[in-house]
């Protein structure tokens, strides 16, 4: 694609990429220098999809103009980004992702909630959508309630699935009839027919065409559950991307112009991040969890057992949706992370004020701790949500007709997520990327996800994963090099032994001993007791040999009492020993909990000591 534009043999040596987010448009310039692709500079500007500008390219131009100013290089012409590069002007390729204007919003429908409806949900999420609702025959709602719900939603498109090929048609046609009766309207473009993708029983296609063909913009793709034992999400995802470009992007203000700037389709931001996470897992042959905690939503991506999954918790975020974190977690769960007392009413008002003034930042240490406490809860809830969907296929061990499956919604499946086998945990989003001390980001990730055994941690330095995700579709090598060298900040490795909590009568119980061999042969040794946290400094960029010896009955990944030895990367936080147990339980007594939090903060040097002590005393 992109290479063809520059003619055969012309290598891409400069890349400009933007991510048009809901609030900010971020641009990055990448160049090949000394044979390696590196990030050169970045620029950002407010997104201009909404009034008074209503033209996404205005914000993109402003962000790119910052790059022009910083590099002294001309990149913009009257018709967009100048390509290919000629001398010191322009770049070889321009790419973009977008989540502006609410991103891609979809409704999905299927016959059985935990089977075809869930597969449809996975397909939509993997394509970068926010799933507004999943309708199913057995979702517990009455037909009129489903119709009312469908009518009230104004999605960008619908994905309808149901039935295995050659199986019963009745149920999927029933759902199609509900949709037809509801006559849902698209979010954008008054008077346009709402696109609907059918990815169900191929024998039902004529009936689906008869039911929906006139009222909606119907597209038919291969069944995403052709047989119960198999899930084929690719064709549905591809059609979602086509429709995203054709319909959603074409209706969004200014995107017709932006699409002309780039030879590569504009990707939904979460789809781009997801493709990058998947690529990291595949290329390094490791399991990965990625999280992007934003102002409105928290996306979780995972790659386990060669399966990529993405979920979006649409109402868990750090600004626009911060009150929903309060609502879902409750005040007590947020307060449990604070070592100081805070008045309930005051805390609630503060959280509300962050919601209505979302771009403000904590100025005081107290405010910083409150925001980071909220983020722990948001991360934990988003991850719980993810685990419910990142599973193997449900219900497949029972034979029978589709009618029987409708009654078998309870048939479960194992989660694909195995925290003892996690190869990399990557955090992204303002509260993690902009934490004043990197150890704060590390601890938020640890408390939110509770990694087990030995787990490397990283953060996205300036949130450029979206741009690198779309770049990976045209130039995987450039994407990988920049990701490795400029995007990822290696925080270090957390060692979290699993095992029973001691009774407490016998005093401190040692649970792990660690030996680190540095590249120069020097060794560092440390041990930790149950309930303790410790930090072993290991320089960033160094590969070290890590030997972890758990005490009897404690597991660090090789079984109770078995030693683990492996090479790990150093990082800005070094090696963190987390012997607090899993699941992590904080003391219920306020004074004890405060003392424990302070002990851990001190051990890891998470916050400036003196001001923190002042806060606790006041």
């Amino acid at each position, binding site marked *: 694609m992109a290479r063809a534009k520059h003619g055969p043999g012309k290598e891409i040596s400069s890349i400009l990429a933007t991510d048009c987010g809901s609030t900010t448009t971020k641009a990055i310039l990448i160049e090949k220098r000394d044979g390696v692709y590196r990030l050169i500079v970045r620029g950002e500007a407010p997104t201009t*999809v909404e009034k008074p500008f209503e033209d996404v390219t205005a914000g993109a131009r402003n962000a790119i103009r910052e790059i022009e100013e910083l590099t002294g290089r001309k990149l913009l012409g009257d018709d967009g980004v100048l390509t290919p590069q000629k001398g010191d002007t322009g770049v070889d390729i321009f790419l973009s992702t977008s989540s502006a204007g609410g991103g891609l919003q979809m409704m999905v429908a299927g016959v059985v909630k935990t089977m075809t409806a869930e597969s449809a949900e996975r397909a939509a999420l993997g394509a970068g959508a926010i799933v507004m609702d999943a309708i199913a025959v057995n979702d517990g709602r009455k037909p009129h309630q489903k119709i009312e719900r469908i009518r009230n939603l104004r999605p960008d498109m619908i994905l309808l699935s149901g039935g295995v090929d050659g199986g019963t048609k009745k149920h999927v046609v029933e759902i199609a009839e509900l949709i037809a*009766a509801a006559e849902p309207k698209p979010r954008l473009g008054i*008077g346009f027919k709402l696109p609907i993708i059918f990815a169900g029983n191929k024998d039902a296609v004529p009936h689906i065409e008869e039911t929906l063909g006139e009222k909606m913009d119907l597209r038919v793709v291969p069944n995403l559950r052709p047989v119960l034992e198999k899930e084929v999400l690719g064709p549905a995802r591809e059609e979602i991307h086509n429709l995203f470009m054709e319909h959603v992007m074409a209706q969004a203000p200014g995107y017709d112009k932006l699409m002309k700037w780039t030879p590569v389709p504009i990707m939904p931001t979460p789809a781009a991040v997801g493709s990058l996470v998947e690529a990291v897992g595949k290329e390094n042959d490791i399991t990965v969890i990625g999280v992007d905690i934003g102002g409105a939503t928290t996306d979780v991506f995972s790659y386990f057992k060669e399966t990529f999954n993405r979920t979006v918790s649409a109402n868990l975020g750090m600004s626009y949706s911060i009150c929903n974190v309060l609502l879902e977690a409750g005040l007590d769960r947020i307060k449990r992370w604070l070592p100081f007392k805070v008045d309930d*009413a005051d805390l609630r008002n503060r959280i*509300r*004020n962050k919601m209505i*003034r979302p771009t*403000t930042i904590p100025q005081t240490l107290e405010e910083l701790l409150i925001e980071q406490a909220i983020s722990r809860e948001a991360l934990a809830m988003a991850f719980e949500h993810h685990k419910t969907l990142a599973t193997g296929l449900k219900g497949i061990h029972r034979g029978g007709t589709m009618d029987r499956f409708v009654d078998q919604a309870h048939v479960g499946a194992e989660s694909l997520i195995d925290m003892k086998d996690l190869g990399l945990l990557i955090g992204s989003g303002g509260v993690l990327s902009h934490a004043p001390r990197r150890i704060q980001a590390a601890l938020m990730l640890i408390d939110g996800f509770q990694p087990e055994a030995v787990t490397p941690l990283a953060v996205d330095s300036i949130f450029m994963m979206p741009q690198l995700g779309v770049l990976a579709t045209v130039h995987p090598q450039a994407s990988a090099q920049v990701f490795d060298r400029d995007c990822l900040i290696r925080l270090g490795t957390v060692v979290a032994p699993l095992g029973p909590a001691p009774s407490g009568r016998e005093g401190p119980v040692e649970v792990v001993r660690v030996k680190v061999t540095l590249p120069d042969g020097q060794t560092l040794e440390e041990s930790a007791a149950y309930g303790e946290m410790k930090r072993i400094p290991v320089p960033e960029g160094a590969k070290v040999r890590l030997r972890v010896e758990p005490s009897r009955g404690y597991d660090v990944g090789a079984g109770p009492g078995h030693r683990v030895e492996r090479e790990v990367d150093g990082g800005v936080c070094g090696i963190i020993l987390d012997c607090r147990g899993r699941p992590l339980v904080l003391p219920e007594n306020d004074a004890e909990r405060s003392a424990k939090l302070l002990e851990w903060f001190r051990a890891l040097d998470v916050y400036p000591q003196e001001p923190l002590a002042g806060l606790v005393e006041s």
Partner: protein
Amino acid sequence: MAHAYTPGLKVTDNIVLRKERRLPILGEVRVGLGDTVRPDTVVAETELPGDPQTLNAANVLGLLPMEVPRHMLKKEGDKVTAGEVIGRASTLFGLIKRQLKAPCDGTIERISEVSGQVTLREPPVPLQITAYIHGTIVEVLPREGVVIETEGAFIQGIFGVGGETFGTIRFRAAGPDKPLTAADIDDSCKDGIVVGGSLMTGEAIAKAAKVGVRALVAGGIIDTDLVKYLGYDIGVAITGQEDVPTTLIVTEGFGPMRMADKTFELLKSLDGCEASVTGATQIRAGVMRPEIIVSGYRAKKKRKAEASSSGLVPGTPIRLIREPYFGLLGEVVELPPELVVIETEAKVRILKARLQSGEIVTVPRANVEILES
């Protein structure tokens, strides 16, 4: 970013505003270019398709789905009335007779031989869009709506709940730092837009709803009072659709908040004027804030030129919008270009501001908003 600050809220005694009024689906526009409209003038209307009812005909009649069509007494497109028999079947040599009755008036939209369902569409529901403000039609969007222009005073709040309404402004504030209590609201406030000072107390909100006040405006609101009024907690900052008797607009934030002097003085001068207001708030890109519009208002005396909204410069009047100075007003004294380490240890762009008390404080630029004129 070159402009790393929060855009301010508009508070002005004179502005030309344009409001787009659109139908959710295509319909008919009822006014023409140049027409003068009032808040309650219907500018466009349409008919929303009636609610559909799905009837499981196969089950009710004891038939296979494929047998349903030939046992229906009505065909697709036929009009039916509530209680009318629309399908009939008999089994066991006529011993068991079954009927399918229409649960409501409507039209048979679909009879499915695959699912055995019958879809009955209720009569359409008319939907009208009103002008919401006084003004003149300056653009007609065929079959979709209109654009209305008006000139007058305009005040944006920071957060609100409840939809559009209009009424006469009843200024009841004893001072910008004085709360609005239940005692400040009496029967004369009925159908009015009542303005208080620093806080709308929970009792004042309850009294306003009881008296029939159309909207309340004050500097702040206590979070728990809002939850009590709504009957539920708001999770996401998208409001305007709440089913509440009185629209609420806060100008500063949550908690007791001294109302900005400029807002306070302007609202005071608008006492007795008719205003259009909405509590609709959507805090994302393209921020939608609650608003108070007084069409046709002309300031009695000319104001001196105020700082433009082109950016932060020394002298720009600002509001501090984050702890530890939340809600305080001041003006920019200095804008150091370099990044500065603040208490959290974050390195950020800051400014120095002189508060109304005379104290000079350092704050991140992200934590101020310009007091727009």
